[in-house]
């Protein structure tokens, strides 16, 4: 499977360097290496979800407990989390560091992913969630650190879009 193991490692190490100690995740193709790294890391709590919106509650609980967390999800999982984001994270000022695999954009071959790709960025903008795309490995560590810093200082959700250019090798 041509998911980039090297770039997944860069992302994972950047999250660890930010002090992230809990990750919630729902498996998706581009996230397989990241989830495996979390599973194999004794310093990381990995919470495997049934649906991504649960991750908002998990991250809120972690924040109350003083633990930094991150959410790994596909963009369709972000779309499935929107009520939790608005009526918990925004309402109660909860920092969320969301790493969203940006399926359905240029190069997408799976027809079922394509509609989500059309609405991901408009939905992020409508929700006033600060976000950046991660396109290249040399950007990853810096932008992840900046996103985590902003989430903690602003007490709000911040998103990073994991793009095909970063996650897929072929």
């Amino acid at each position, binding site marked *: 499977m041509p998911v980039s193991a090297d770039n997944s490692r860069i992302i994972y190490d950047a999250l660890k360097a930010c002090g992230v100690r809990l990750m919630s995740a729902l498996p998706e193709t581009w996230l397989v290496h990241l989830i495996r790294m979390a599973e194999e890391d004794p310093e990381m709590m990995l919470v495997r979800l*049934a649906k991504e919106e649960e*991750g908002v509650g998990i991250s809120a609980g972690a924040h109350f*407990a003083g633990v930094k967390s991150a959410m790994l999800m596909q963009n369709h999982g972000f779309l499935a989390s929107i009520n939790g984001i608005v009526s918990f994270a925004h309402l109660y000022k909860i920092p969320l560091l969301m790493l969203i695999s940006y399926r359905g954009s240029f190069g997408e071959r799976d027809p079922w992913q394509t509609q989500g790709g059309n609405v991901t960025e408009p939905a992020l903008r409508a929700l006033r969630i600060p976000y950046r795309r991660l396109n290249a490995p040399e950007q990853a560590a810096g932008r992840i650190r900046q996103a985590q810093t902003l989430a903690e200082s602003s007490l709000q959700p911040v998103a990073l879009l994991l793009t095909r250019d970063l996650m897929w090798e072929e």
Partner: protein
Amino acid sequence: MLRMDCLRSVYPELERCLVVTIMGAVAAELQSLGHRPNFFYLQHAMGLASSTGLGLALCLPAQKIIVIDGDGSLLMNLGSLSTMARYRPGNMVHVVFDNESLLSVGGFPTATATGTDLEGVARAAGIPCAVTVRSVEDFRAAVTAAIQRSELTTIIGKVEPRGPSVYITGLGLLENRFQFRGHIASLRK
């Protein structure tokens, strides 16, 4: 059985725990008994109280976490039972007040009014201990035992669909949230 009487019966036990409640009648009634800094009321985001409790329980293994859920909220996030069961934190007690009704919006019947058995759903999801109680004495005994035991427990309390006359309380949402986090920080010192 009235939810208010159930809450009153376990109120002293809640002092030693971190408590997360759902919105509506549960939040208003618990506050009417007396707010404490270890109580967090999730006044929206229906379904996520149990997820919040799970996050707390996994991050704070030395603390007892009590989630006070309801049938309407739990039915919106039944998957949470499977996630709780997957990690089965022994320091978490999941109370569900089941009045078979979406009371605060006019009393529309939920699926528990037409046969859905939340104890059965919890057990089938893998929650190691799930019980249904129908009297205040049994409720108090079940909650007290679950707090003392180190096993994830879901307690379904079948209650009448009666609630307070007002749902809005004097406690601001953000005031509650910052106080709750500050309280937990003080426990770590």
